[in-house]
């Protein structure tokens, strides 16, 4: 596609429910990143995928968070047993490869609200 797409654009869920957020990277981009943008906290790195290598999960805030990337393309970020502090905008980005990580192209984000 022309850019990184994310779905849904908005998600409201009740505390304790699981949610799945989807990211479609730019076609041909092998590197994919998830970030979280919280009010007053800036952007926080969550997880990084590069090709078929094991992902770097060092930014995931708890074991309730997980992500997978199927077929080296689409990625899903899953948050289990959501908490109110999980409310944020979740941004996905992709780059051609890890060596060009400075050219990260961002999607519009998914705004998650946990009530």
């Amino acid at each position, binding site marked *: 596609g022309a850019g*990184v797409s994310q779905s849904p654009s908005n998600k409201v869920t009740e505390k304790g429910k699981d949610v799945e957020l989807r990211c479609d990277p730019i076609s041909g981009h092998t*590197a994919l*990143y998830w*970030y979280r943008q919280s009010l*007053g*906290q*800036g*952007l*926080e*790195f969550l997880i*990084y995928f*590069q090709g078929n290598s094991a992902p*770097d999960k060092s*930014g995931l805030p708890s074991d309730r968070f997980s992500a997978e990337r199927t077929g080296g393309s689409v990625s899903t970020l899953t948050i289990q047993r959501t908490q109110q502090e999980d409310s944020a905008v979740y*941004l996905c*980005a992709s780059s051609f490869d*890890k060596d060009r*990580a*400075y*050219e*990260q*192209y*961002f*999607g*519009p*984000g998914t705004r998650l609200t946990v009530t």
Partner: protein
Amino acid sequence: AQSVAQPEDQVNVAEGNPLTVKCTYSVSGNPYLFWYVQYPNRGLQFLLKYITGDNLVKGSYGFEAEFNKSQTSFHLKKPSALVSDSALYFCALRGAGSYQLTFGKGTKLSVIP
């Protein structure tokens, strides 16, 4: 550990006046530095980057940034602000050998007509 600081939460400037959005960083080794802009309800858009070479880099929409190694700064500038420049601006850093970006907390720029 690497970090980015944007000391101003908000910057107000009159249309037509020059603008500066400040950024300082801390990293071991040579930094790769970036500015991104986020318009309301939109994703982050890349503005410009410093990798190596000239300390003054030019980017999209007439923006430029000056890399100052001694002051560990990478301030964003524009000679004449437009109302349409009003947005949230993020400075970001990538350390050599790393791939993840470390972002500042963002600066809200308001250009007043």
